[in-house]
């Protein structure tokens, strides 16, 4: 169907409604299933255990939280550092960062034993030694700043002093939140697979990478996967800086994984070494995620001849999206698969595959994200950018989508 000139966004039409209905249906089904399972069996409906307490719901939360941070960091390029070519995606970034974080927190809430108790127990406990306490503080601030900043952008306040200050605050909030999230793992000296002072840098890298992947995908989705439906500034971003940035980020991520793998494989410590040899590199899925989810996109984006193609960009975004989800999963589980303190008593690595309830939670996170996003595209002008920029909408072609 064809959208009118006054409807520049592919998702503000029937397609949007259709997708919204589908996403909402998936959300209701998956969340309903997860709820009913939790009501009937409690967390026994998870495949986690006292030996491996953190499973896919935590990985999903981590994935969303870091994608949110990544989006927040990308948004800071124009909003804090003045890279004006990124303006076309700034508002969408902030919005996506917000809803992705909300989705992640929703999944986490279902994973916790007593989520509402958290609301009073964390503030009153004031356990400043705990990285998880700071996670609560920083992500709450992050969420607040994102919302605030978005309201400024929504109000058209791109360059006011408050808006600038908010941008800086949000940037710092994102850095603290995701960096601290990294330390939740990185500071655990009793879990050598995670114990790594540079974990925040790794999280920033992978976070921004997943954020950009999400961004690219959603930008295309918003325009019916047609670049010619986009404002020209956005078009030039997508054929210029962004794919290069994306390639560089994937490259950095790969480098990080490579040095972690080399360190792990070199180490004699079975709590690191075995994770790589017997778990990660023994898993076809992990290897596939590395090759198809990161290496292939990297290679594709390296080539200047094809990296600007729409199909390549959408494909790499999707591949990286999935690849990094696997990376998160294997990161979270990998830190726990070697039976702690069991010696030869436990004969094997701890087996873990997510249960249907856990998959349902992941799915509800994703579908919630879609629902919120689609609502956002419908109700909020996510493609907006500062007034002083040329009004792209005037040069825009009618967008076609099916």
């Amino acid at each position, binding site marked *: 169907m064809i959208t009118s000139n006054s409807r520049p966004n592919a998702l503000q039409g029937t397609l949007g409604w259709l997708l919204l209905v589908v996403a909402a249906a998936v959300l209701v089904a998956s969340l309903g299933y997860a*709820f009913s399972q*939790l*009501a009937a*069996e*409690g*967390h026994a409906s998870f495949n986690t255990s006292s030996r491996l307490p953190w499973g896919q719901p935590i990985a999903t939360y981590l994935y969303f939280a870091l994608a949110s941070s990544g989006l927040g960091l990308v948004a800071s390029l124009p909003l804090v550092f003045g890279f004006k070519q990124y303006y076309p995606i700034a508002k969408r970034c902030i919005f996506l960062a917000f809803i992705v974080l909300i989705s992640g927190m929703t999944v986490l809430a*279902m*994973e*916790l*034993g*007593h*989520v*509402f*108790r958290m*609301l*009073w*127990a964390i503030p*009153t406990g004031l356990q400043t030694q705990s990285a998880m306490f700071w996670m609560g503080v920083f992500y709450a601030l992050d969420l607040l700043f994102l919302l605030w900043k978005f309201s400024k952008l929504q109000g058209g306040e791109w360059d006011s002093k408050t808006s600038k200050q908010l941008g800086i605050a949000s940037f710092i909030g994102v850095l603290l939140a995701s960096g601290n999230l990294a330390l939740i793992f990185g500071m655990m000296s009793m879990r050598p697979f995670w114990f790594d002072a540079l974990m925040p840098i790794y999280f920033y890298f992978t976070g921004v990478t997943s954020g950009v992947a999400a961004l690219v995908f959603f930008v295309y989705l918003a325009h019916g996967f047609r670049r010619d439906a986009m404002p020209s500034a956005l078009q030039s971003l997508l054929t210029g800086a962004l794919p290069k940035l994306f390639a560089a980020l994937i490259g950095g991520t790969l480098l990080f994984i490579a040095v972690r793998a080399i360190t792990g494989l070199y180490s004699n410590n079975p709590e690191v070494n075995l994770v790589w040899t017997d778990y990660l590199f023994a898993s076809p899925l992990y290897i596939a995620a590395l090759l198809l989810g990161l290496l292939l996109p990297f290679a594709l984006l390296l080539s200047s001849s094809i990296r600007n193609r729409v199909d390549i960009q959408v494909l790499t975004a999707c591949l990286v999206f999935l690849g990094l989800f696997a990376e998160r999963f294997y990161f979270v589980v990998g830190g726990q698969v070697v039976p702690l303190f*069991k010696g030869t*008593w*436990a*004969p*094997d690595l701890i087996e873990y595959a997510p249960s249907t309830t856990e998959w349902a939670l992941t799915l509800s996170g994703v579908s919630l994200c879609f629902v919120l996003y689609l609502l956002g595209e419908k109700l909020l002008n996510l493609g907006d950018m500062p007034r002083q920029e040329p009004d792209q909408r005037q040069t825009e072609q009618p967008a076609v989508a099916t």
Partner: protein
Amino acid sequence: MNLFQTLINRRRFLQSSAAVGASAGAVTAGISGLTGLAPTKEARAQSPRGDTVVTKNVCAQCPARCGIDVYTTDGRVHAIYGTSDNPIANGKLCPKGHLGTYFLYDPDRFKGPMKRTNPNKGRDEDPGFVPISWEEALDTVAERLNDLRRREESHRFAMFYGRGWGASDAGIQYPFGELYGTPNAAIGHSSMCADGSKKAKHVTDGNNSYSSYDYANTNYLLIMGASFLEAFRPYNYVMQQWGHMRTKSPKTRVTTVDVRMSPTMAASDRALYIKPGTDGAFALAVAHVILTEGLWDREFVGDFEHDGQRFVAGRRIGASAFDEKWVHGLTDWWNEELKDRTPEWAEDVTGIKAADIRRTAMEFGSTRPAIALFERGATGHSNGTYNGMAIHSLNALVGSLFAEGGLGYQVGPSYGELPVKVEDYARNGAWKDQPRLDMKGTDKWPMAGNMMQECAQNHLDADPYTLDTAMFYYTNPIWTAPNPQVWEEALKDVFVIDTSPFPGETAMYADIVLPDCTYLERTQDVPTYPFEGWPMAELRVPAVEPIYDTKMYGDVIIELGKRIEGPMGDYYRELGNLENYIRHLAAGFADDPGDNGVDGFDSWKEKGVWYKKPYRWRLIRGEFYEWDGERYGRQMSEEEVKEHLFKTPSGKFEVNSGYLQEHAEYIERELGIPRDRVGLVQWVEPVHTGGDGDLHLVTPKTPMHAEGRGANLPHNIAIHQPIVGGSGTVYLEVHPQTARERGIGNGDRVRIVSDIGSIEAECRFVAAHRPDTLVLPFEFGHWAQGRWAKGRGPGNSSEVTANRSDPISGLASYYTGKVRLERA
């Protein structure tokens, strides 16, 4: 008794959390994971509910008879600890003891008497039990018994028992049989238990019994096939002594000989892995070294007539060169057997290096006091009695019998007389001419104590006759007997009465179920198993009234007896009930009060135990003395020694057994030993069962084997496995090389095949085991027993175990089977 004061100590964080919690509002979602905005409704802080009462009982999860304190609050039993002033428990327990509460609250228990409605019997047949009243149940059984007796077929009624506790349960079966008229009233399971060690002692020192041990004072332990730290009796006490032995001065040195890695092997100073069934060869070589090295106890054994004479390998000694003291037949033993039993010879037989045998022998022979102990690992073979004799002879060579730090035998308690005598009522009839169904005491099994494992086949063969009615107490042969498949067939046309509180396999064949109370609900006398030798008798006191409509077995027998026609009914009416019966037993304590002041039923009930220390006899420097009230002061004559200690034809420890010589013809026929040699302690090749199997299968009892109920105790299941594989599963343990040769990987599902059947298991590699020996702890593989046990793998090892027994002791050879291993 209020055990705990209620002390409310408020502490820092706790106050604030409650305060905040209270103000946090009250949103409660009904689902797990989302509750918790509201604080817990009650304070839930340091408030014990109700008063706690402690009753004395005796654990019933193995034969050890540990005294237990049962903690009950508001009518619910919630804790069991060892009784502090009980000489076996000393306040301690083994891992099983604490789980006793589960026996009481097992959700799968039989909740009252029932009868069968489905006439078909089999694994997959639902018995269709329907509840009936005790009146109807007892009347039905009594009517059947009366009818059988009217037809002059009373011998076709059999009563089987496994764990007999004392006079008031299994003990009550004997008079019942006498009165009713059946030779089969008390067919015990001892031949499927450990009769081999009793028989080995019977034929050498005349005591048909397990030994008592003075661990506290011993300086050397040679343990052979006994699973000392897993399943040896009394396990709890053995572990207490282990802690003492291993830290006292001097530390007790331990050598363990076994066919597999086990906690005992691991904890010993020296672990020697022996080829299954060859323990006798090892012991003979040790004896050989003790003699050739001149390490024997001269004051007990005797010595050469002349100085300078000695035992030289391969060389005979003169017929009268050696002057035997308390050992009979040593010269013959040396000349006809021992002189050639060198460590080098034994290395070929046992697979243990000669140097290790020699080292062990040198240590054992030169450390006093020293004990050689053994159990089914050594005796569960066709040559079991001879293996046991060889090991037990080591105790004689180093003078450990009745010595401080050595071993002795258990003395029974001073029970009172019953108010009625069986002779007054016993019925003499045609049944007196009938052999027992298991043919014990006939030419088939002349020396065995019981032969329960034979009963199923004998019934099927109608030789000597078929069973009509069978009653089972604390035994489950349909699952536990070797080759239990035969029992499954045999009991199909027998009227089966089961008395277990639990739904075991035999109960699934029951026509009538007369459920016993669990031990926490029973009154029951429990004289001790062999322990430290001095007499002791404990008493079970119910912690709670029966929580279901169950009846103590002793009362069931008495009530049945009352319903039998003729004078038998009078006998039981006279006896009254179980408590009356036990009160009469306790009356004996009035003349012989215990060390703890117990002199009758009431004080017995309060303390839970009657005992009198010390042990009555002692060997001191080659002479025997009796306790005179203050010390071992009265020397015993040879006649007294023969009467009380060495009850052999010679009145001495016999390394050339007079008892066996009396059965020379039988032994020659069954074992192929020339009849003039049968008495000698000697090496006999084991005959393994299982067909063409190339691997030995051993099926050890583990610390968690809870008298057959372990498989239905969830906590037990969770920690059952003592060696490999974490928790929750019992694995077949196999040497990696053995597995890999058969293309089997670690964790694979495997099939264990013998000539009578096959079972499946998951396997785990344990490189510490012998490559030719598979280890499968038995416990699981039930097809009944309750929700947790049913269908829980691995398979039941009995199903690949042939029903073959040591002809002398009658002990079923559970550990002699050979099998094939393949991937399932």
